[in-house]
């Protein structure tokens, strides 16, 4: 089965050579503009950041959300974190903030809010979605060296991330997760496996599922359970 695509590599900033011309003027103007923009972005950052830590912490995020009139548990915040490539759940660093807002071309709260629908569309694109899907798992690994997530959180995450696309699969899989006793946590491999399951396997007949292939065992069990319910 396909594995998740490699993460997008970070963008490197191009360094403008020192030559004078209209392009230069334009460049210097745009760089002026961009530095102005960056300034505003930074200012926005500091308006939400915690002074002592120099980061936006959960409280700051909550304030941001309320200013954007978006619930802080809304999936779009997760999408925002993805865009920023935020490492730690509940916190944004300055670098991450800059990265995200620059990409979204937002330097005020209003602009940020307006950028959200576009962001949604972007995430939904198949090429991006796999990445977003994988990102959302990693984002929930809050402890150091944590490799898996407990079932209850997984159920919530599945609903949040996949619910709109694969309502039936998510609902049935969540039901199964709650009943089964074999697994108390889910790892990345199983997490990704489920996504591929949703996109490849015909539901709810499951006719093209082949347990001989390298599906995670938990999915084999899930399929067996679904088939037993049928009889």
């Amino acid at each position, binding site marked *: 089965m396909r594995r998740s695509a490699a993460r997008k590599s970070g963008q490197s900033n191009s360094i403008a050579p020192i030559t004078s011309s209209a392009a230069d003027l334009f460049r210097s103007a745009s760089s002026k503009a961009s530095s102005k923009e960056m300034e505003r972005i930074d200012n926005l950052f500091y308006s939400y950041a915690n002074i002592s830590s120099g980061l936006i912490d959960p409280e700051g995020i909550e304030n941001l959300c309320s200013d954007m009139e978006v*619930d802080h548990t809304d999936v779009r915040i997760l999408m925002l974190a993805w865009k920023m490539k935020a490492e730690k759940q509940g916190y944004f660093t300055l670098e991450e903030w800059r990265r995200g807002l620059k990409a979204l071309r937002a330097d005020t709260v209003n602009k940020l809010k307006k950028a959200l629908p576009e962001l949604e569309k972007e995430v939904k694109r198949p090429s991006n979605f796999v990445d977003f899907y994988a990102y959302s798992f990693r984002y929930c690994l809050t402890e150091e060296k944590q490799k898996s997530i407990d079932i209850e959180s997984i159920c919530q995450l599945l609903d949040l991330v996949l619910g709109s696309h694969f309502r039936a699969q998510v*609902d049935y899989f969540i*039901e199964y997760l709650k009943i089964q006793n074999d697994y108390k946590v889910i790892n990345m491999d199983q997490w990704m496996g489920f996504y591929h399951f949703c996109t490849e396997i015909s539901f709810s007949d499951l006719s093209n599922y082949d347990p001989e292939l390298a599906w995670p065992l938990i999915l084999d069990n899930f399929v067996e359970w679904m088939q037993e319910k049928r009889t």
Partner: protein
Amino acid sequence: MSNQKKRNFQIEAFKHRVVVDPKYADKTWKILEHAIHEIYNHNASGLSFEELYRNAYNMVLHKFGEKLYSGLVSTMTSHLKEISKSIEAAQGDSFLEELNRKWNDHNKALQMIRDILMYMDRTYIPSTHKTPVHELGLNLWRDNIIHSSKIQTRLLNTLLELVHRERTGEVIDRGLMRNIIKMLMDLGSLVYQEDFEKPFLEVSAEFYKVESQEFIECCDCGEYLKKAEKRLNEEIERVTHYLDAKSEVKITNVVEKEMIANHMLSLVHMENSGLVNMLLDDKYEDLGRMYNLFRRVPNGLLTIREVMTSHLRETGKQLVTDPERLKDPVEFVQRLLDEKDKYDSIISLAFSNDKTFQNALNSSFEYFINLNARSPEFISLFVDDKLRKGLKGVSEEDVEVILDKVMMLFRYLQEKDVFEKYYKQHLAKRLLSGKTVSDDAERSLIVKLKTECGYQFTSKLEGMFTDMKTSQDTMQGFYASHPELGDGPTLVVQVLTTGSWPTQPNVTCNLPAEMSALCEKFRSYYLGTHTGRRLSWQTNMGTADVKATFGKGQKHELNVSTFQMCVLMLFNNADRLSYKEIEQATEIPASDLKRCLQSMACVKGKNVLRKEPMSKDIGEEDAFFVNDKFTSKFYKVKIGTVVAQKESEPEKQETRQREEDRKPQIEAAIVRIMKSRRVLDHNNIIAEVTKQLQSRFLANPRRLRNVLSLLLNEISWRGIPLTENCTVILLEGIA
């Protein structure tokens, strides 16, 4: 304040930005309605499950659950109404097949629909307490198909018709039956019971009522039971193949009631083939079948038991009161043992060793054995016969078997002390005449009696064995210390401890000089080693071997009684002796002497004496001579003694004697009880004493009361009469 712990995402459902208006709901419902139609028309493959699921999900999410649910109900109902028509249209045998086919279709459709509507099942339905989808589907099927007026009755009749056909021997499609019945069960136990089971049971009862009546009129008992068993097994098999397991006990109850319970008495008492006939002919298989069938119905086994008991008691009573049988005690007891064996076999082979039957057998035997007062004596005679000769050549194990069986009969006796008395007499005779076939068998029986009745019962009997052994040792010691006696007549003495042996009357008899001298020598030898004892010679017992030479020189060895020896020895010194002379010389009592002389003078082949006149009776003036013309082809001749005439009313005497013997036992029991209880009221005394004496004899309450009052009077109770209400108090100083 949100905490960024692991459980960060307290997620609310992600809100799809969909416009929530009624048009949306209608559109979505149309999609779903169409899907349901496709599903019922076997066109489901073209549908996208995920899409339909999401549509249903959204409807419920946006509070259109009511519309979805009611739409489901009406869509399904309309489909079921169509299905109903197609089933009604089916002809003949295809009716059930069509019903079955449509039922399977409906289930498949229902499954799919339920899967699509799972979200509604999980959220909307519980909160509004509506019927879940699957159950709803079953209920609609029940209401529109099963309970439709054109189907309901037809279905029941078809099913019952098939059962009836199968009962009359036809082969039916059991698989189809099973599916249809399972359908009814799936619809709920109420449906199964009301739409099938109840009528089924009623019809079955009618069927078996009629059939059992036919059978009873044309079959004998054994055949009838076979048929009943067959029907019972058929019904059980029917249940396993296509009915609900819970119906088994109900239908078997019907068969049991109609075929067995209602005809129980007719069967048991059927002429020439009923229970009594089966018992008489040892029909184990039939009896076993009757047992197994009757145990299923109330009072079934009780009925068998009662009839068996009364038959057994009747047979037993005839056995023990039949005058022909009473002539041969050994045969009498053997017949009892055979009867016991017969019923033991029946109970073990046919009645599966049922304890209640065993008890009935025991109580019946106890009842009739004790109807004949001579049973204890006869049993002792039987044992006597066996120990004298019956057990010769029998293996050790078989001996044990026979003795154990005898013990069984012994246990039934109420008057065990009477048995003891006879047994003692018979044992004494066996021991003294050396006529026992096996010492081991004798001892084995004593041990069994001891186990059954306790040490006291057998202590005297054991004493008899000890005396025999001791006497042997004494004789050895006597001859060892008197070597000079080697040439004279050989004396063999059995020293019997009084009390252990049956009491004998003391009889006078003058021994010949040689004998009395020898006897005296023995007496002084014995008393020399056993001071403080008294020896008295029992001349009415004992034998002597006498060598005689007759007129023509013929020599014989005569084995005679002691009395006969005394008489014969007189003729060493005289040729002719009158009765009076003999009487004077021997001092033997008249009746014994007369019989003794008769035995030697009047019995053919044993007439070593000659009498004048040659009459049978002995007169005072008769004269006796040695019969020189005596001949016998044997060298050794045994001369018995003519048996005495029975005294008048021996039985009454025996009874009186027995009561006398029992009095001390009763008194001892009373004293034992009072010593341990100290204070006890009258009724309880009687009860306790009866219990204590049970192992020896059945005590008569009036007799007990008599003995008790006598005992109290002896202890000078101030002559106050004993009443039922008084209490007896043990005072100190009373032994």
